[in-house]
């Protein structure tokens, strides 16, 4: 099959789907309620591209396929085409986005059933896939940026999907505004790159980019990293992601866990040859990732909202990916992106299933006359014991929890262990920050296993904690929701085997490394000339990593074992005291932003800018306006309406023209 046609279809089918479910129902209101049709079309609009992506993957020859459709803009030396690039990196991302995307679309047909905005939801979701595909397939930075902004827009639309609740709109605004900061940095980086290289397509950039003067390149990479911290929720811009959980849960799974938030990593991997030229910036990337991972993990311990736990866990896992990027192991970052998409997607979908059934519980309780004012279907404190009622959700949640915890032989184990090993390897080769990153990663891995087990135990084990638990029972979700859970859970088990660790046959079976890595002909560069870690030490590290995960999981299990309910939370609170409160308050970062930046801006606006606007600017503007008006009034006296005056004016004009042309001549 013609690959150019396939790329075109991959891109256009989601767009067509978005138009179908977004535009047609505007004119045909009866279409809005035909959920079967809209759900099928939208899911097919992502599933078909997945099938094409598989075909492209299977027949991929190793040479990038570049298709250019038309010139978007041309001005002077700048010419930007709508060009797309299929190579190893974009293929992996393409498979993840369309694969996980279609599973989540399927899930959404069940999850959004009965919502009055069903059609709108699928239109946004398809539009998101289209934008995301633009982002990962783009062959130049502007098209990538188009997708980058497109996914931002869709994220905004979907976070505020239930816009009648003001807090949802606020969360959407927050996500959008915080992302602007990062996007601005990304734009600046693009301007710099154009100034230095004179082109923005990846072919030229990757060939000439690494040769840019190191100082300038340092700034460029730093700016790109700042852009990435916005989209991928890293310090200092991660604050929007937890709030983004206001959106429907499939959105959290698709956009805020599996795909969009990883685009920062994709960008760094794509530009890896340039990043590798500036080691001092890589230190920043690695350390920021490590600190973010640790901070988010500690916050996650204190959260009681099941989605918030997962949100902070996502921030933390993204931190892991940035650690990998910071130590120069970009392919490992992408590896973790892939496995994370499986298990975190699964976890979010499970939480959606749980929330769904807890909403039914709430509904039933209300029917029984309970006052449900303070009840929150997402609060783990009122859950417990769900395993008896929701077996599929429980098992898949458990599998993906163990996967993210890094329990050996599950997907998360391989990718996380590879991150630990790569940072250790760098430290072993003499770059001290490798050890620092490794140390923080180990602590974070321990915490991850702990808080994820906590969330599992609180939700599914023990005794039910909602009122009237004897008579009111939750129900398992329909098959359209549980099938996606099992698919993702299955992938969370086997997904790690695409990247077997270095201890096995000296890393020769690490398929993803061989596929992506530059030494093997792939597009993702990596740190070279690393010291060789002895095999025994490697085994030791693998064992240590496994131990950490198992110990963390065991502590979590013990602390929240059946019968204990929330007791350990109180104990932890007492033992840690102020530290726990500090974690619970999210390190006061939100407060800092609110009080210093938002309030500061508001204060400055009110006290300085507003008076200045009112007196100085308005004065000038009104003055100009008044002047124009009075001139206008004055001049309009000439416009008498009398034809004699008009003719006189004409004659004066003739004199003027003749006079001027004589001067000119």
């Amino acid at each position, binding site marked *: 099959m013609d690959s150019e046609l396939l790329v075109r279809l991959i891109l256009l089918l989601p767009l067509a789907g978005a138009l179908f479910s977004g535009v047609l129902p505007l004119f045909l209101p009866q279409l809005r309620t035909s959920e079967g049709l809209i759900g099928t079309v939208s899911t097919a609009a992502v599933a078909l591209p997945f099938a094409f992506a598989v075909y492209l993957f299977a027949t991929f020859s190793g040479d990038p396929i570049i298709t250019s459709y038309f010139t978007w803009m041309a001005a002077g030396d700048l010419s930007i085409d709508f060009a797309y690039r299929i190579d190893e990196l974009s293929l992996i991302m393409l498979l993840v986005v369309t694969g996980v995307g279609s599973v989540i679309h399927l899930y959404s047909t069940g999850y959004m059933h009965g919502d009055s905005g069903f059609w709108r939801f699928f239109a946004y979701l398809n539009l998101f896939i289209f934008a995301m595909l633009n982002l990962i397939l783009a062959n130049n930075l502007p098209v990538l940026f188009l997708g980058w902004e497109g996914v931002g827009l869709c994220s905004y639309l979907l976070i505020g999907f239930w816009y009648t609740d003001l807090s949802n709109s606020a969360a959407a605004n927050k996500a959008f505004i915080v992302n602007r900061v990062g996007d601005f940095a990304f734009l600046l980086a693009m301007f710099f790159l154009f100034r230095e290289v004179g082109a923005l397509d990846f072919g030229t950039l990757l060939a000439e980019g690494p040769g840019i003067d190191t100082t300038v390149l340092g700034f460029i990479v730093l700016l790109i990293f700042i852009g990435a911290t916005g989209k991928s929720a890293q310090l200092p811009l991660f604050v929007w992601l937890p709030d983004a959980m206001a959106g429907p849960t499939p959105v959290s799974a698709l956009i805020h866990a599996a795909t969009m938030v990883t685009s920062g990593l994709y960008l760094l991997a794509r530009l890896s040859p340039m990043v590798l030229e500036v080691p001092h910036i890589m230190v920043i990337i690695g350390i920021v990732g490590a600190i973010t991972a640790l901070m988010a993990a500690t916050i996650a311990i204190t959260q009681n909202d099941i989605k918030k736990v997962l949100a902070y866990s996502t921030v933390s896992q993204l931190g892991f990916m940035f650690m990998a990027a910071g130590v120069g192991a970009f392919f490992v970052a992408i590896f973790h992106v892939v496995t994370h998409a499986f298990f975190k997607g699964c976890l979010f979908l499970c939480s959606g299933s749980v929330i769904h059934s807890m909403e039914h519980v709430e509904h039933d309780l209300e029917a029984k006359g309970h006052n449900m004012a303070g009840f929150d279907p997402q609060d783990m404190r009122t859950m417990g014991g769900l395993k008896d009622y929701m077996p599929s959700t429980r098992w898949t949640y458990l599998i993906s929890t163990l996967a993210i915890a890094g329990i050996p032989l599950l997907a998360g184990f391989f990718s996380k262990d590879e991150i630990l090993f790569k940072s250790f390897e760098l430290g072993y080769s003499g770059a001290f920050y490798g050890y620092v990153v490794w140390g923080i990663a180990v602590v974070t891995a321990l915490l991850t296993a702990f808080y994820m087990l906590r969330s599992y135990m609180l939700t599914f084990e023990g005794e039910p904690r909602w009122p009237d638990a004897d008579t009111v029972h939750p129900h398992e979700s329909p098959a359209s929701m549980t099938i996606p859970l099992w698919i993702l859970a299955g992938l969370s088990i086997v997904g790690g085997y695409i990247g077997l660790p270095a201890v096995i046959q000296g890393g020769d079976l690490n398929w993803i490394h061989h596929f992506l890595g530059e030494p093997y002909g792939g597009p993702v560069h990596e740190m070279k000339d690393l010291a060789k870690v002895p095999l025994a030490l490697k085994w030791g590290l693998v064992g240590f990593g496994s131990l950490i995960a198992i110990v963390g999981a065991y502590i979590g299990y013990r602390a929240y074992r059946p019968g204990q309910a929330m007791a350990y939370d109180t104990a932890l609170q007492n033992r840690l005291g102020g530290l726990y409160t500090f974690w619970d308050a999210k390190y006061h970062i939100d407060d800092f932003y609110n009080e210093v930046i938002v309030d500061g801006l508001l204060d400055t606006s009110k006290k300085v800018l507003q008076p200045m606007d009112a007196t100085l600017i308005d004065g000038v503007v009104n003055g100009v306006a008044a002047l124009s008006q009075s001139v206008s009034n004055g001049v309009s006296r000439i416009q008498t309406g009398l034809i004699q005056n008009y003719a006189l004016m004409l004659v*004066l004009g003739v004199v003027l023209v003749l006079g001027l042309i004589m001067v000119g001549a």
Partner: protein
Amino acid sequence: MDLSGAFTAMWADLPAIFSMLIVGAAGLVVILMEAFQNRDPRIPWLTAGAFGLAMGWEAFQLGTAPDTAFFEQLRTGGYAAYINLLILGAGLFTTLVSPPYLRRLNRNFGEVYALLLFATVGMIMLGTSNTLISVFVGLETMSVCLYIMAGLLREDEGGIESGFKYFVLGAFSTGFLLYGIALMYGTTGTMHLPEMAGAFPDGVPLLFWAGVGLVIVGFGFKVSAAPFHMWTPDVYQGAPTTLTGYMSTASKASAFAALILILFFALPSAQASLVLAVLALITMAVGNVMALRQANVKRMLAYSSIAHAGYMFVALASGTTAGYSGALFYLLVYTVMNLGAFGVLALLEWDGMAGRKQTLSSLAGMGLERPVLGASMAVFMFSLIGFPPFGGFIGKYYIFAPAVSAGLTWLVIIGLLFSAMSGYYYLRVIYVLYMQTAADVAEADRAPEGGFAQPAWLSTAAVALCAVLLLVLGVAFSGVVDVTEMLFIQADAMAQTP
């Protein structure tokens, strides 16, 4: 000249004036139809068909090389096709929006369409002329039809005033134009534009420049450049709105096209640049400043069209190929947005006096009541300001950029300041359309029940199409700009090798 083969040669040249023939013949048929059946409903369709057919023909001529026909009286090829497409497109649009409007005014005469067709014939001749003779014939054919159209509402004092003023002042300015033509012919000894530039091997006599000055006066009147603009607000206000739209676009397009041809081919040096720059300055100033205080939207748009003529003079003053091609591109954008704006006004008119008495406030809340018209009007206003991503923005870029290159930075800065000022009166329309409701305005300004023209889907669709076209022109403009540049490169090559 050997006239023995004249008829054969002219017979062979007939395809060159295919559009003129089709449109002219349609005009004759319309008159006959009207004679047999009053207000024959087929007339608008026939008119639209003639315009459409001619447009189809011209579309295929866009890429052809420049040439002349009828003993070098008329130009053919890409340039002519581009201008003709503009003019015919304006005619087609006017035919599509007019029937419901004129029916409501009880003026749905067949003659209107005949006049429209005949005026178009004149415009085509003017816009494609290669000699001063055809310039004059085309100009007058067009003008006489426009005079009648302006005074169509003959029971209304505004209508009479409109037609009469236009006629008297038009005749007056024609005198200057004719005298200018005489001087140019007298000093060069030729009527053919491309031959004039080379007619002075030993310096250009002052008398020639005087002739050029008078021709510029004549054209300045037609395109309503200040200080020859005084008729414009009165005429635009009193003429039936759809026809105002036609007058303000098609006639300007063809007059500018002819003026560009004269400037490009006939002038031996760039000495007219100063006078064009000063005219641009005055025109922009008068148009924008006067538009500020207009309460009547048609009058506001009349001043706005004066202002836009000023912007186009900026491009002409640069005197370069890039400037001329930018002006051609701007003509297209201007035609689309102005036609659309007048079209919307026509469909929202209820006072029975061609909108002469209707204030801006009478449109309060219309944006939400008539969503398609409202949204289109918003697009037109934004585009007229020169707001991206609409055509008006790109158009302004392509007329101002060549002027900067030609060293007229001061003029461009002033032009941009005036554009900023124009935001005030354009945005006010959007404000009234969307942020006011009928409850906010005085009783006298409210539309009576059923006062509007019957909503006709075809008219609405035509207006919406203009809005879409502006968006397209604002995004995918490079193709059109390439075309307008190519026209001059070809024409240049032809001028080099006579």
